[in-house]
């Protein structure tokens, strides 16, 4: 049991990315999430924390885990949820993003969870509307709640991130998860290495606070945690590698390769998995895998985020009233 966490006054009513949060703030979210874990295990899996609040899921890209996890987190905190999909909304009639958001806000919503293919959209929204904005993935920029649930899962298994060596492997270029992970992990004291073919490294990667390697075999024996990313074919133009088989051969996490890894290595994957491509089924389902724990922890982390943002919003409202 972690002893008394440091008290901190949470002031952010938006969660746009982890890049701008301090190590103390990230730790505070993780500590808060611990208190929310038990809601999912008891007889009444609900608490009256966000009663009467309305949260919109504004997803312009497909999602299974993130969307359902946010809906469930909001429901467990007794909020009402509005589901928005691009295909069945007036966006298909040409309504702009801001008009869509303003119209939803006019109905009296309190929070917007947004996923969008273009980087910066959540930040843009946060500057133009009053509701709390939570980034559920924007372009190649950030996916903060995934970064948080990843470090939460690591901390739960390893006690702390300080001094840990962590490899993030694969399609770094198209991965907002890699970026949010990188910010959270390095802020909490871990050493991060991006591993993948040069064609899947982002531009200006050498300016980021990470090591870079083009060989998984060189890195696999040295790391405490390995996070395998999905190849995002839907975002690719051109061919970043000659064939899927060749990619798998050099950068797939196979049973053979696992023989060279530390025996207590944590195997992670943000999902969805391409079985047999970036990770072999036996490894994804093996004893070192915490892939489903990540999903489970995501729920507690998202409840904590919803709670904290609402607290900050309530506090600001009170201050504004006084002025």
């Amino acid at each position, binding site marked *: 049991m972690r002893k008394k966490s440091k*008290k901190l006054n949470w002031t952010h009513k938006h969660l746009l990315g982890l890049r701008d949060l301090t190590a103390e703030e990230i730790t505070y979210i993780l500590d808060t999430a611990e*208190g929310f874990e038990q809601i999912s295990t008891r007889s009444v899996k609900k608490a009256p924390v966000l009663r009467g609040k309305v949260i919109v899921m504004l997803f312009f890209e497909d999602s299974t885990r993130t969307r359902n996890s946010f809906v469930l987190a909001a429901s467990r905190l007794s909020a009402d949820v509005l589901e928005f999909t691009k295909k069945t909304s007036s966006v298909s009639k040409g309504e702009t993003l801001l008009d869509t958001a303003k119209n939803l806000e006019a109905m009296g919503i309190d929070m917007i969870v947004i996923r969008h293919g273009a980087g910066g959209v959540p930040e843009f929204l946060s500057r133009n509307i009053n509701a709390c904005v939570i980034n559920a993935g924007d372009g190649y920029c950030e996916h903060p709640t995934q970064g948080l649930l990843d470090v939460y899962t690591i901390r739960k298994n390893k006690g702390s991130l300080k001094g840990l060596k962590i490899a993030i492997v694969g399609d770094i270029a198209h991965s907002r998860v890699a970026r949010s992970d990188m910010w959270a992990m390095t802020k909490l004291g871990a050493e991060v290495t991006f591993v993948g073919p040069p064609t899947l490294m982002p531009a200006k990667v050498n300016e980021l606070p990470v090591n870079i390697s083009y060989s998984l075999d060189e890195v696999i024996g040295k790391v405490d945690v390995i996070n395998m990313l999905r190849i995002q074919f839907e975002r690719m133009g051109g061919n970043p590698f000659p064939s899927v088989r060749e990619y798998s051969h050099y950068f797939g996490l196979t049973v053979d390769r696992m023989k060279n890894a530390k025996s207590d290595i944590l195997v992670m994957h943000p999902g969805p998995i391409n079985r047999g491509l970036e990770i072999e089924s036996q490894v994804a389902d093996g004893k070192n895998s915490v892939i489903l724990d990540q999903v489970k922890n995501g729920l507690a982390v998202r409840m904590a985020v919803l709670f904290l943002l*609402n607290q900050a919003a309530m*506090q600001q409202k009170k201050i504004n009233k006084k002025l």
Partner: protein
Amino acid sequence: MKVILDSQQIKQILTDLAAAIVKNTPQDLKLAVIGIRSRGEIIANRLAQALSDKLDTQIPCGTLDITLYRDDLNDPQGDAQPQVRSTEIDFNIDDKIIILVDDVLYTGRSTRAALDALIDLGRPKAIKLAVLIDRAGREFPIQADYAGFKTDVEPGKLVQVNLIESDEKDEVFIE
């Protein structure tokens, strides 16, 4: 600052509370003690120990965090934000007599939150409230079943309970 209870008196009160609880609880019913974070947790531990010694059986003891059930989450009182911590109750509360423990009973709002939090965990046979200090000034229709020390302190004053486990010294004072 005026000290109203010293460590010897606190010890005596807890012994008396344990005796009263044993006397009023039929022997065939299962007791459990649950303390409200954070001072209630410590008093609950001591009370559970005293009950275990008296009844010669281990009385389960847990800790309840009531932050998620507070009635001021959407109307913050003061500047301090509530901090969520975990509830640690590793036994089933169904059909048990739950002794709910807090350090000071004042407005009754914490107790109301604790009752709501408890019934989301299960369906106890009964919930009894035991407090070290029963301070006048109730805002809700809630009363203690077992009160250690009753005091009538004017509003605006603070009744502070210090305990060795968290504050180096057992003492209750008014300031």
